[in-house]
Structures are given as C-alpha cells and as structure tokens.
C-alpha cells in the first residue's frame, strides 16, 4: 500500500517535471518558458519529495525533504523573478 502511494506520487512528480521540460523546450518566449518551468517543476519536486517521505516514513527525513523543497522553491522563485526582470529590461 505504502509502495503503491509512493509509486503514484513519483509517477505524477515525473509527469510534472516532464511537462515543465517540454514547456521550456517548446514554448515561444522567455516568460512562457519561465512560467512552465518554475510552476511545473516546483510541483513535481514536491510530489517526488512526498513520495520519498512516504517511502522512508521517518519524521526527520520528512522534515529534511520539506526543507529541501522550500529552499528549491525560494531559489527558483527569486531566480525566475530576476530572469523575468532582465528579459523585460532587454525587450523594452
């Protein structure tokens, strides 16, 4: 049962990361690509972290994975913001 939940979470996480990558490769401009990349990847990473937490089952691991996700969230938010600002500055 636990393995099944973890498998479902992992597969959905991989789906979102895959979708984000396809978006980054296929979408026309910087802003669309950023949108696809950051949104889908953050969700994908969360799902994968949740799958790993379910597989491990310990509170310590769960909290560490949560911390990792929050740090990735912070980094991707700020870098996406900076890239978007830079791109807007260039286009104007």
């Amino acid at each position: 049962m636990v393995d099944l939940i973890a498998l479902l979470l992992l597969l959905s996480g991989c789906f979102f990361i895959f979708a984000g990558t396809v978006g980054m490769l296929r979408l026309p401009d910087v802003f669309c690509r950023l949108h696809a990349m950051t949104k889908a990847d953050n969700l994908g990473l969360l799902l994968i972290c949740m799958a790993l937490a379910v597989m491990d089952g310990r509170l310590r691991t769960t909290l560490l994975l949560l911390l990792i996700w929050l740090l990735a969230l912070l980094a991707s938010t700020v870098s996406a913001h900076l890239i978007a600002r830079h791109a807007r500055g260039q286009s104007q």
Partner: protein
Amino acid sequence: MNVGLLIDLLLGLILVGLAVQVVLGRQLFRSIVFYVAFGLAMALVWARLGAVDLALADAALGAGLTGALMLAAFRRLIKLDPAQAVTSGSAHTALALLIAVLAAGMVATIGLTAMALESQPGAAGVAVFEALPATGLGNPVTGVLLAWRGFDTLVEMVVLLTAFLGARVVADEGWAPRSTVASFDLPLLRTLVAAIVPLASLIALYLLWIGSDQPGGAFQAGSVLAAAGVLLLLTGQLLPAPTSSAWLRLGLVLGVAGIGLLVLLPMLSGRPPLAWLGRGALLLAESMMMVSIGCTLTLMFAGAPGLKDGTR
C-alpha cells in the same frame, strides 16, 4: 538488465554528452553553462558510486563556485573584448578537442588498468580502514586528509593561497566589478539573502562538525561559506574594495597556519597528531581551513584585493 545498471548507463551517457558539449561549444557562454551542468552530473555520479564526500565537493566547488568564477571571468572578458561574446572560436575548439581526446584516453587507460588490478591485502585503502578505529574518526576521507596525508592537505592549502595571490597579480587592480543586479532593493532579493546566508553558515558549520564521522569537512564547509559570500557580493551586501583589512588577511592565511601546525607540531613530539593532540585539534585546524577557503574563494569571485560592507 537491472534498473541500477540502466541508471549508471544513463548517467554515463549524460556525462559524456555534456563533456562533448563543453569541448565543442561554439560559444564560450554555452560551454560555461554546460560545464556547470557537467559538474552537477558528476556529483550525481560520485553519489551513485558511494563517494558522498566527493559528491558534496563536486556540487559545491566543481559546479557552484567554479561556475560562478567562470561566469565572472566571462563577464570581465566581454567587457574587455565584446567580440568574444559571439565569437565562434573554432581554433580554440580544435585545440580543446585535441586536449579532450588525450585526457579521455588517459582516463580510460587509468580506469582499465585499475579495473584489471586485484585488491592487494596491504593496499593503502585497506590499511586506512584497518587503522581507522584507532583514530576515533568515522570518516576515512577525513582520516586520510588530516591524520595520514596531512602534508598533502598542507600543500593543497598553500596551492589555494598561491592561486589567490596569482589571481591578484594578474587581475587589473583598478577594475572594480559592478554587481550584476542593478537594484538591490528588490524585496525578494532581501528575503533570499536573509534566508540563505544564515542557513548557509549553519550548513557550513554542520558539514565541518559532521566531517569527522560522516561525509563533510573543511573543503565542503568552506565552499558553502564561499557560496554565501558570492551571494552577498551579487546582491551588493558586500562590495569589492581596493585594500584588504587585517582581519581578511588573517582569514586568508589561517588555513595554512592551522593545517601547518597540525602537521608540523607532532614532528616535535614524534607521535601521530591524533594520539597527541586529539580530535579537538583536528576540528580547530579544519575550522581554520574552512575560514581560509571561504575567504579565498569569495575574494576570487570579487576579483578584488578586499571586501567592504555594502549596506552602509
């Protein structure tokens, strides 16, 4: 074919593909970006091989700081010679290809030779694991770096200091790099710095502390500190300064002093360092090395002799 082998093959393919992209990259910038990706893939490979110390070092130094240093150098290069930004550099690529092929041949030879060897009972690696319990250390890498091959580590710290001094000589002193972020007043940036810098310091201290028993140690901790320094420089909290303070100079030579004392002092007593000085001495020497590595790499990224507080 099992899943582990598939992952290994995939990682190997990614690594070779990225390396080819770095060498054959038509633009310098692309090569730098691929090199950073290569460092991250390399870290994954080390982790997969069970060499977590190397994985940490490669992620922090190989991908993170080297990448930041190369980007800073690239920025400086296109400032001096804007044509370099778009140059095809095919002549460079031919030379790089030659060097890459020779290097790959060398690595393949060493690898194949190593694979053909049988594990010897008296080999250094076996001896390390046999002698490790007597030192009280849990991490064989720390044992090798500080207890048995301390001279190598001393020379590494001297190399780092020499590299910094060399970079200082080459760097144009009058050139003060501007921070890349035009406005430091972005609320998001301030949040990032406020969250990441204390956390990075905590992680550095943790890596230093845990390094005696688990993967970690002075080099990983120092590079995490330097990463925090790079972030402070990029966001204008720290600014390059034309002169260095006495504290900074002390920080730069602290590591050589620490590991030098750890290696040379036991020669006076004739006993191995751990038996004579204990684990506290190791931790002290590693702390000094961490400070030096952090200061040196941050200053290298700043490309300036000193640093000053950018918030005042």
